[in-house]
């Protein structure tokens, strides 16, 4: 499909500086308008207009451009085509399908391929749910298409039109460009509704109202679900130096979260990581749907070697797609790996515009851009009256691994869950390397009812108790580093022993192990409960004067360390047996110390 170019006056390229170009004769252009640039028709967006001079960021490689070549307006802002055909596919930063690009050029991504979008030839079997005379409000549903094996695409009236149905096609197979419904609005104007409609990426899609987020996003990852839960519709950041596990964590969340839809943005990261997703996701079965997790996934890839301006756009492309599925009434989870690359793209463009830099060369508007982005998360009622949500989980890549840099600091201000990845844990191969002392979740309070009703009455108090034990262990470790472990009193050594079980047996979770990669909440709770049991029974012994060395039964301890592997996810009876073993051992042991 060629880009629709307006028959308006054209601009003339007057300056070229990497991805930023300037043009003259641009008085009739609009701010944020999408344009095509030069003979190759590169895609760009107007970002500054001053008099008749416009500045454009170009989403493709600009080598080969000349001054004097034309800039052509398209009459609309950078927009996406939202319709069926996005799930199971991978797009570049401005929604061009990488599979189609591959058909044009088998290995490398060329420039000047124009504005491709979702497939407009494919026939989708549509079921129409309205009839002539029905009143259709903005954002309501007029039909359905089975987009994949697990996701039904609910055909939405665009958020900016409404009216009375005057014509509907019969159920049948149509392309996204076919007119399915015609409506007449209050001003007597006719509107044609198709499967797909366009929406500008930089404008949040409207909703009826925001509501509180009361349900956790269940991820199957113990340290997250039990210790630092993320609410559906909430925001989380995963900061960490290179190699600490940001991408692995994001992949784990994309694979196992109980969201309906996953939008995964590879923003300025490795090509191979996107390839890995394409190769692995189709083979992984979603424990809830029984189908491949790819069936619910949309991928956006602007790898680190792709044009930097499209990196800036990729985040907005992703969140706009997320909003589209949210508006159908789905719970969407979006991962952006890494938001730092997006911020750096902002910085690079800003530098080329010779704007006054604030901290570390970042533009002064960095905090407001970060805030705007995370504000597109939320739990809402859709215009059509359904529940929908977007959870945003952003990776942050701090320069030098130092969290006191502008992107991490500003992100921290606007997210509610902070999963701090720790280099020394990663060096010791403690994965996920989420530091339990530095991380936090602001959702514990509002989610505690849910945990009490759905997991166990004492789930949150158990969590708090165990977290306190870990804080205590941290203080004790500092002492151990000064005097050695042997001089500590027995009750403190017992804390150290239990903390070790929590670290190795509980917090460490092996993403490569087929059972441990995803663990149901019941098992997460039962495991921690068993550790508490061991801890408490041991303390009984301490009161009787049993030394820690006797409490630490090698066999029981090694069963605790390995219970994540040995106790099947769907049969927790082993945990009760383990408790029995503790009782048998301790009962005999304690007898010797009683009286």
């Amino acid at each position, binding site marked *: 499909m060629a880009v629709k170019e307006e028959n308006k006056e054209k601009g003339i390229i*007057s*300056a*070229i500086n*990497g991805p930023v170009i300037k043009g003259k004769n641009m008085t009739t252009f609009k701010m944020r308008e999408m344009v095509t640039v030069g003979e190759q028709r590169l895609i760009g967006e107007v970002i500054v207009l001053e008099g008749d001079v416009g500045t454009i960021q170009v989403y493709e*490689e*600009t*080598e*080969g*451009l*000349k*001054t*004097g070549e034309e800039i052509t307006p398209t009459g609309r802002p950078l927009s996406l085509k939202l319709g069926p055909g996005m799930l199971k596919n*991978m797009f570049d930063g401005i929604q061009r399908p*990488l*599979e189609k690009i*591959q058909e044009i050029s*088998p*290995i*490398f*991504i*060329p420039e000047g391929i124009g504005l491709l979008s979702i497939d407009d030839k494919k026939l989708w079997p549509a079921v129409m749910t309205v009839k002539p005379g029905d009143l259709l409000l903005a954002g309501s549903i007029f039909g359905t298409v089975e987009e994949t094996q697990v996701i039904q695409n609910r055909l939405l009236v665009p958020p900016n039109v409404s009216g009375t149905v005057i014509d509907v096609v019969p159920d049948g197979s149509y392309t996204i460009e076919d007119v399915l419904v015609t409506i007449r609005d209050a001003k007597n104007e006719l509107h044609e509704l198709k499967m797909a409609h366009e929406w500008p990426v930089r404008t949040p899609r409207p909703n009826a109202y925001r509501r509180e987020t009361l349900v956790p996003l269940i991820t199957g990852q113990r340290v997250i679900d039990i210790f630092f839960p993320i609410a559906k519709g909430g925001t989380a950041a995963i900061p960490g*130096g290179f*190699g600490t596990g940001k991408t692995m964590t994001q992949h784990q969340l994309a694979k196992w979260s109980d969201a309906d839809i996953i939008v995964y943005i*590879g923003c*300025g990261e*490795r*090509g*191979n990581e*996107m*390839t890995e997703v394409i*190769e692995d996701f189709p083979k992984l079965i979603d424990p809830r749907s029984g189908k491949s997790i790819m069936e619910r996934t949309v991928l956006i*890839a602007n*790898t*680190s*070697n*792709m044009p930097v301006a499209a990196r800036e756009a990729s985040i907005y492309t992703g969140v706009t797609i997320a909003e589209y599925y949210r508006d159908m009434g789905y719970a969407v989870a979006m991962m952006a790996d890494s938001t730092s*690359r997006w911020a*750096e793209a902002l*910085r*690079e463009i800003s*530098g080329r515009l010779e704007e006054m*830099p604030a901290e570390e*060369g970042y533009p002064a508007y960095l905090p407001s851009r970060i805030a705007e982005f995370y504000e597109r998360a939320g739990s809402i009622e859709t215009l059509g009256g359904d529940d929908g949500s977007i959870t945003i989980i952003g990776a942050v890549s701090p*320069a*030098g*691994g*130092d969290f006191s840099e502008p992107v991490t600091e500003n992100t921290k201000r606007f997210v509610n869950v902070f999963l701090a990845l720790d280099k020394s844990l990663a*060096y*010791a*191969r403690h994965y996920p390397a989420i530091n339990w002392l530095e991380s936090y979740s602001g959702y514990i309070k509002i989610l505690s009812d849910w945990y009490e009703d759905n997991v166990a009455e004492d789930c949150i108090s158990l969590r708090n108790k165990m977290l306190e034990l870990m804080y205590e262990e941290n203080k004790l470790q500092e002492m*151990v*580093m*000064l*005097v*050695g*472990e042997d001089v500590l009193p027995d009750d403190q050594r017992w804390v150290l022993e239990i903390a070790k079980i929590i670290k*190795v047996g509980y917090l460490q979770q092996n993403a490569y192990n087929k059972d441990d990669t995803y663990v149901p909440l019941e098992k997460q709770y039962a495991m921690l409960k068993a550790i508490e049991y061991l801890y408490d029974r041991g303390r009984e012994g301490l009161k009787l004067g049993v030394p820690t060395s006797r409490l630490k039964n*090698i066999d029981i301890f*090694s069963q605790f360390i*390995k219970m994540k592997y040995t106790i099947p996810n769907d049969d927790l009876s082993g945990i009760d047996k383990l408790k029995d073993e503790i009782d048998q051992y301790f009962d005999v042991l304690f007898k010797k110390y009683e009286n």
Partner: protein
Amino acid sequence: MKKEYLQIDKVVGPLIQISDVDDVFYGEVVDIVEISTGNIKKGKVIKIEEKNVIIQVFQNTADLAAGNSIIKFTGQAFNLPMSLDLQGRIFNGIGEPIDNGSDIFSLVEANINGRPINPMSREYPRNFIQTGISSIDTLATLIRGQKLPIFSGNGLPHNELAAQIVRQARLGDNVDEEFGVVFAAIGVKHDDEKFFRKSFDEANVMDRVVMFVNYADDPIAERITTPRCALTAAEYLAFEKHMHILVVMTDITSYCEALREISSAREEVPSRKGYPGYMYSDLASLYERAGMLKDQVGSITFLPILTMPNDDITHPIPDLTGYITEGQIVLGRDLFQRSIYPPVAILPSLSRLMKDGVGEGFTRGDHAEVANQLFASYSKVQEVRDLSQIIGEEDLSSTDKKYMAFGRAFEAKFLNQGFDESRNIIQSLDLGWKLLALLPLTELDRLSPENIDKYFPKEA
């Protein structure tokens, strides 16, 4: 016919500015001809502002002045001729032969900037390359098609390590898959370049090596093109001639310093330590050229070497590199000072691709567990050493004393190995088990009972 220009308005470092120019394109290559001698320098358009053009010159600009040179726009992007004849040849940083051999003639030309590989076209790398070095093979496994840098420091034996890898690594699956080496020297001393040339000779691979050399006393703008020329040759050999190519590149630090110098000549807003804000994307445009393609033979395995200023891994050069590459092999000065070769600091080292390339069918079923256990135990050794500094080794608990012994043996026997010594992966894994046996079984919590049964050394 392209116009020629005589007027140079300004020379700033490697950049020249000329005015009143028409009809040039961004990235166009220019020839700068010195009138008196006819010598030609090459440059490239890096900014166009109305009729003013900034050109980055790849050779020395000191003798350039208004009137003494003619600037000719060639109408070409920076292309290099590509042919199998590149092999066995030596070029400078802009791809001109410097070995007295003939020019390369070919109808195939490639733009040295390359283009991003479509992630849909990539194949995720999964094939183990045995380097014969225990620390790397066991703990930071090199995978064919991986980009795995060596983070080193001044005076550390990174060149020896790279040479040993070139000599010992087997890249192809079988005899009929061709392999080759592309070597790029960026701002290196003549001695270093000689060392590599000699080691290629000794490994008997010289006729399979393509060399691009920019010496420390060569112009810095040429450092920007050196790696690009090398990777363009690598892409040609790997993706069009279906060879398995190992790219060795040293020193990325010189490359980044050149980038910084040019950026400052362009008066750009600097980010950390004066390096330009786009250094991440720029480095990515090099590193991401490694990889493999779906359904075809051929691969680029990329071993860049960089020296960390002040051995600081958080310095922007190693930092941004580590964010792009698929792991890193970090060399440690304290190991080096204790005469351990190769001084691989295993804890900060990482191979992100090893997860899919080791284990049953690739190396051996116990590989992942052994690696995990060695990491965990050696990381505990560091804690115990810190403690023993304070309370003395004699006062350590008996378990901690075993950790001390394990740490010493691990460094002396596992990390340490000869420059000419190649150990296969089975030998390395067995050695790992033998050393782990120095620790009480209860400390080995990363090993499964099955593997302990199968591999734990039985007491004699």
